[in-house]
């Protein structure tokens, strides 16, 4: 298979700088969330993506705005790089009516249909059938969209994963399965959850192209995702990417992390996708301290603003509690 044809500009320094900026965007947003959570300003379950940014950024930049995304509860990164407005995401963390889900969803349920972002789903594996259905609709209507479906290594053990892989392969649906293999499902290491830990091999058994990708290398992710997406788009049927990555933080906001040792975490942190790309760009003279500083400034300003606007945003009127349970009838 030959690499996808795409404008040279995508491969140039400006593009790499943009990828770096996107990863930093996710990182800084979540660092702020940690701060706000500790301060009790945001609540509920908040699952951090820190360490996995290369996956969301690399896959998303291989998609077009017309493609669909179905995500999980660990979806801040997917939403932000997809273009769901920062202010609406932050407001959602605050449960405000200006949030991208009107404050009904919170961290685990970010939605923006105007960007074909079909949301966070908090039932492990629960989003896969939706992705299959969205892709089925596209195929039936002859639309050449790709539906990117994100899920974790733990989801691979669920029956729904199996049913959806089979259905997508059987019906040759345009789904790009993006398995974020961060080696743990909460506290359960993949070795203690999967008889076959080589997830691409499992996926291959459904007769769809599947391969592992270094999920800590945003350029590698973009390359593989681009290759897969193009094939899916041109009727090649579903593809499966095992994106090998690692979460640097606890499963949810805090956990004792009894299930893994610090050295392992440190080892992976040395492969931080942001540092990796930054150093590579520095070495190639594509990144100056100035560039980095201005990116950080811009992000810091935007995030700070999103916090103050979220704080001052109105809360839903309690009398509207039952809104959105049923669609209002015209008649």
């Amino acid at each position, binding site marked *: 298979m030959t690499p996808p044809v795409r404008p040279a500009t995508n491969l140039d320094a400006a593009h790499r700088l943009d990828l770096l900026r996107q990863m930093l965007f996710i990182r800084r947003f979540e660092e702020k969330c940690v701060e706000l959570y500790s301060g009790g300003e945001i609540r509920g379950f908040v699952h951090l993506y820190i360490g996995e940014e290369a996956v969301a950024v690399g896959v998303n930049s291989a998609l077009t705005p017309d493609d*669909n995304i*179905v995500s999980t509860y660990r979806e801040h990164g997917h939403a932000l790089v997809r273009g769901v407005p920062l202010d609406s995401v932050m407001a959602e963390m605050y449960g405000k009516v200006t*949030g*991208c*889900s*009107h*404050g*009904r*969803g919170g961290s685990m*349920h970010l*939605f*923006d*249909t105007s960007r074909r972002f*079909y*949301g966070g*789903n908090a*039932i492990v594996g*629960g989003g*896969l*059938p*939706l*992705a*299959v*259905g*969205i*892709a*089925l*609709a*596209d195929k*039936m209507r002859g639309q050449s969209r790709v539906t990117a479906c994100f899920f974790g290594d733990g989801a691979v053990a669920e*029956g*729904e994963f199996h*049913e*959806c892989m*089979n*259905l997508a392969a*059987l019906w040759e649906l345009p789904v790009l399965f993006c398995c974020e293999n961060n080696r743990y499902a909460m506290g359960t290491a993949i070795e203690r959850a999967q008889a076959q830990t080589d997830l691409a091999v499992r996926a291959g058994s459904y007769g769809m192209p599947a391969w592992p990708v270094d999920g800590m290398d945003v350029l590698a992710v973009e390359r593989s995702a681009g290759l897969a997406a193009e094939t899916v788009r041109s009727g090649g049927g579903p593809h499966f990417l095992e994106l090998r990555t690692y979460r640097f933080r606890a499963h949810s906001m805090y956990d004792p992390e009894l299930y893994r040792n610090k050295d392992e975490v440190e080892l992976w942190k040395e492969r931080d996708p942001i540092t990796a790309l930054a150093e590579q760009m520095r070495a190639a003279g594509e990144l100056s301290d100035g560039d980095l500083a201005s990116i950080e400034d811009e992000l810091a300003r935007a995030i700070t603003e999103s916090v103050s606007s979220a704080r001052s945003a109105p809360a839903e009127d309690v009398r509207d509690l039952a*809104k*959105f*349970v*049923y*669609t209002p009838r015209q008649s």
Partner: protein
Amino acid sequence: MSVSGARAKSARARPARAEPARTEPARVEPAAGASEQIQTTYREAMRAAIRDAMQRDDRVFLMGEDVGRYGGCFAVSMGLLAEFGPERIRDTPLSESAFVGAGIGAAMVGMRPIVEIMTVNFSLLALDQILNNAATLLHMSGGQVGVPLVIRMTTGAGRQVAAQHSHSLEGWYTHIPGLRVLAPATLEDARGMLWTALEDPDPVLIFEHGSLYNAKGMLAADAGAVDIDSAAIRRPGGDVTLIAYGGTLGKALAAAEALEQDGIDAEVIDLRTLRPLDDATIIGSVARTHRAVIVDEGWRSGSLAAEISARIMEQAFFDLDAPVQRVCSAEVPIPYARHLEAAALPQVDGVVAAVRTVVG
């Protein structure tokens, strides 16, 4: 205090009776012969409704186990594959969670899927998708993600297919906010509810009782969409209100006939829509009859009948002359042996006996 309480009760009762919540039947059957009538069956009416929907709207497609080549487990979709092809009459693998969820996904982006789950017994494998996605996405997304999906499934016992294949679990689905739940019990509703359901922007579940498919009768040749909001009074009466739906409607009507012999005039309500319930029709009837018996094939504890009894308690307590009674299935896994199965399910004589306890 209890005495005054009792006095208060009878006293407060009057006005409620002077003007009951609703005196007019919510809906009565159209006079037969109003228009040209054709002989048909419940199965054929359901098939005509699907064909009709497929022809009207190309966003509509039917998906489920054996709906195509096999013609449908209960032969409802027989012949539709030849007419509409395998894309729109779509056989699925045995993957209830995946194909129900796929129906939800397709609906999210503008299709109008009719998903057939062969029977309610297997719907448990898709319940997570129905509750946590179909019913919840609209709210969770702050109104962005609508799910205009229709799910049809057969429900009920009575064919000696034993414990795992005889469930009546529609009551569980009526517990779920975000869903509309229908139970067509007549040819007219079998023919007319589907199209209205497909026009609903939210997920609608249709429960077809297995005993009804062969039901024969006359139906207006031009029968079409019917409302899916209100209950129907299938038999007006003044002495007691029998509340039934789906597979139990026939038993309630038969009981009413039997009671007539003893001079007991029973009103029979067909709920039609199980969620949301048409309280006005139920309470209006009870306000007139002061007595009610609910006939529900679900197991007694936690049945839909319990919800209806509780609502009558809350909305018509002072109109009641006797405690509302429930005739439900015995709380046992439905046994295979014919006589045991019959003993486990609501039967006409049981309804008659229950009415006797509340009347006179």
